[in-house]
């Protein structure tokens, strides 16, 4: 019963982003777990489309910023402008005052601008000119970024990366999906045709329900074993933080809920683990990232209780 609206969204978004149902499910699990999502891949693969489609399907207020290197924090947060009529400064809200914020190509912004988002993402509030203003609820940031090797990018620092609950990659579409794409099933058209089948209250209540998903002791044991392994095994440069552990658990709960269960299974942990932690760990051989295959050995080594 619970799975139905969820599968409905997946279906909807899947019409726009062809052949990427797994990524859509992960992204939804992330958003329902109140987490921010980072989509990373080369240009032209459909990152922005996915982000747009997600926000439309959730029926939330949506703002988009295109990050560039000359962008300033004020362009995101908003500025106070002197109004001659009233003779006083009035605050003009920036694009951050919304429910879903799409920060396109976030790693093209300078570190200064990037960090302006930091408070917003973590505290769900912004402080401009000494005054703290709360953001909307729910508030999601969906950011996209190009792989780090590309020119003209400012890599996100670890602390900033850590604010994202999940990082997903889209990858090339499958052969059949690409065929449909090439046949011209226009994304623009489908996007505008998408109907919003959820409301803000639906999203809120789902988020609350996810909080009640049951987590057993033996599952926590399994999660702790996994965390412990990343901290002691030699292939990991730095182990996972407690925040990463919380993130995995939160996402796994969301994943379980979206699959119609009221309790978390080891499979849920395994399904989301890589996507939640891959941007928070680095391998001791290659400090830039962590190949997915190495996580398979992690699951082989740490037995399910």
């Amino acid at each position: 019963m619970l799975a139905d609206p969820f599968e409905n969204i997946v279906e909807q978004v899947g019409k726009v982003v062809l052949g990427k149902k797994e990524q859509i499910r992960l992204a939804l699990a992330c958003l329902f777990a109140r987490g921010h999502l980072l989509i990373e891949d080369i240009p032209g693969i459909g990152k922005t489309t996915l982000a747009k489609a997600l926000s439309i399907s959730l029926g939330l207020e949506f703002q988009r910023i295109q990050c560039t290197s000359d962008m300033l924090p004020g362009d995101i947060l908003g500025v106070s402008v002197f109004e001659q009529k009233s003779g006083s400064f009035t605050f003009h809200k920036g694009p951050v005052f919304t429910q879903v914020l799409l920060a396109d190509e976030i790693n093209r912004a300078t570190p200064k601008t990037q960090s302006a988002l930091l408070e917003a993402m973590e505290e769900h509030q912004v402080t401009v000119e000494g005054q703290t203003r709360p953001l909307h609820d729910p508030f999601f940031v969906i950011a996209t970024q190009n792989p780090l090797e590309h020119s003209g990018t400012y890599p996100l620092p670890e602390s900033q990366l850590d604010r994202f609950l999940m990082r997903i990659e889209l990858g090339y579409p499958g052969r059949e999906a690409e065929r449909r794409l090439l046949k011209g099933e226009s994304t623009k058209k489908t996007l505008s045709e998408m109907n919003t089948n959820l409301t803000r209250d639906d999203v809120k209540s789902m988020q609350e329900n996810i909080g009640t998903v049951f987590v057993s002791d033996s599952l926590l044991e399994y999660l702790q074993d996994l965390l412990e392994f990343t901290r002691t095994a030699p292939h990991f440069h730095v182990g996972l933080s407690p925040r990463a552990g919380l993130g995995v658990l939160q996402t796994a709960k969301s994943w379980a809920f979206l699959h119609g269960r009221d309790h978390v299974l080891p499979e849920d942990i395994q399904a989301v683990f890589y996507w939640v932690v891959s941007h928070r760990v680095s391998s001791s051989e290659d400090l830039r990232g962590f190949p997915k295959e190495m996580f398979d050995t992690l699951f082989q080594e740490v037995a399910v209780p």
Partner: protein
Amino acid sequence: MKQNLSPLILAMAVALLPQVIMLPVWVSLWCACFWGYAVAAERNSWPWPGRYVSYGLALLGLFFLLLYFRKILDGKAFVSLLAVMAALKPFEVKGHRDRMITVFLAYFIVIASLFQFENLSIIIYLFFSVLITTAVLIHINHPGGTPKQNVSLASKILLQSLPLMIVLFLLFPRIQGSFWGLTRSPLGISGFSERLQMGDVATLIKSNETAFRVYFTSETPNENHLYFRGVVFQHFNGTGWKSIPSQALLRQMPQGKKIVDYEIILPAHGRKWMFALDLPLLTPNDDLMLMRDHTLRLRRNLRRKKHFRLKSYLSYNTGDLSHKEKMRNLALPDNRNPKTQALSRFLKDKYDTPEGIVAGALSYIGENGFAYTLKPPLLTGDPVDAFLFESRKGFCEHFASSFAVLVRGAGVPARVVGGYLGGALNPYGNYLVVSQSNAHAWAEVWIENRGWVRVDPTSAVAPERISQGVAGSVSADELPAFLGYGQKGVRHYIKQVGLLWDALNARWDVWFMGYSFAEQRALLERLGLRVKGWFHQARTLLVLLFVIILPIAAFPLIRTHVSRIKKDPVTHAYNRFCARMEKAGCKRRPSMGPMDYQKMLKRRFAERQEEIDEIITLYIRLQYAGEYDSSLIRRLQRRVRRFKAT
């Protein structure tokens, strides 16, 4: 790369240390040299010998060993080989496995020491060595601990293994005999030889080494009965005495009374000599024979310290003498010692009974200015003549052999007996320590109706030699330094400590070294198990050993198993289910959660889908969904049990 060699080398060095006194000096130097280099090289990053250099050194070591030992492959050679190779071991340590092998090598060196030494102080040291090696073993597996923590954990482990050690000691069949030929070659044997030249015994007297220890089970006999018979000399060639190979005494057992029960602990001397209080009875013992000359002989050379239960008559009659034996004990070379022969003829004419001749000979020695000394002048020419008529200074051996020659010449069968006289009573252990300085020689004469009778001519000159030992009968300046005693103060206490330590050693010998296959049989009998033959006994012992050890070994396993079921019945039931499916050929990979496994099982066992679903669903409900209640657990357990039955 650092291999953390120092602890390994420490363990080996500690294990090898007691061997140093036995090993050839070059082997000890070889070890010190390579181990020292290995430690220094690791610390200062000096060059490390490559593989071929190591091989070369190993070959060189082997070559030296061959050169040194040639064909003598005794325990010493084996230990030397072990030491030479152990010295090179650090150079080939490359990883954890090599480190483990090196630690086991250290244990092996300790075991080798057990074949070489058996006295208490070394055994205590070997315990220490095992402790150090175990601490090193802990260190290489858990490098985090401090040395103190490692040693304390190692001592805990050793203490925990103590009951097991006792059970193994008591029940593991103690088949006697040399193990891999690794028994030791006896160290510095002193004792009698098959010959007795005048002057031999003096070298013995100068040694304070313990010859053997005696425990009297019955009352301790009077000190003038403490004659321990070792060897009998019957053939006199004019200058010296020779022992004739004797045969086992089969008939004409000596008659006697005043039986003494005692135990003798005899250290390995590498020969077949056995010492027994005059006059030993034949006791049922597989290792001993009673010979015709009334000595006891071992069937095999004594290569380990051993203890024997013996019985002796203090008063006895050995009975008749065959003509052949009488002639043998009267024989004298014709043209030697003419003056002595003249004296013999004189005695024979003067007295008509053998007793009279013996008394006359004794009184001749007692009255003509003979003196007891440990430093007699050299005897030239016919030694008996020279002693009886010129020097007149000597010790027991001179008196005994001259006396025997004298009475033989007068027609009384006589022979010389070598052995020990007296000993020091240790007040702490209530036993007699007979040391080499107690060596003595006396004579025996054969008298009709009385048999062989002991005559100690030394007593005619120095009766205090018998009652007080050597120290009493010679003047102080003649005594070797160690025999000087009587001083109070520090030396007195040192002596007391020495006696106490000797008593402990003696206990150790009786209780541990003396614990043999025969004692094990006695133990079995006390437990009500009668055994026939050694094979049956060994089997019974092994069965008993396993019956005792199995529960000890199984106890922790069972305990953890039971507590695991009690603590987590759900996981246990699920694991049982998984184990069963694994037998059916569908193994759960460690990464598989219950749902993944369910999918896999359903593909394989489509016909049992419902059962599988039910079990997995129950498991998920209990383990992950928080529906923990006992009726559900029982249902899961039941389902899992039934799953097997069908």
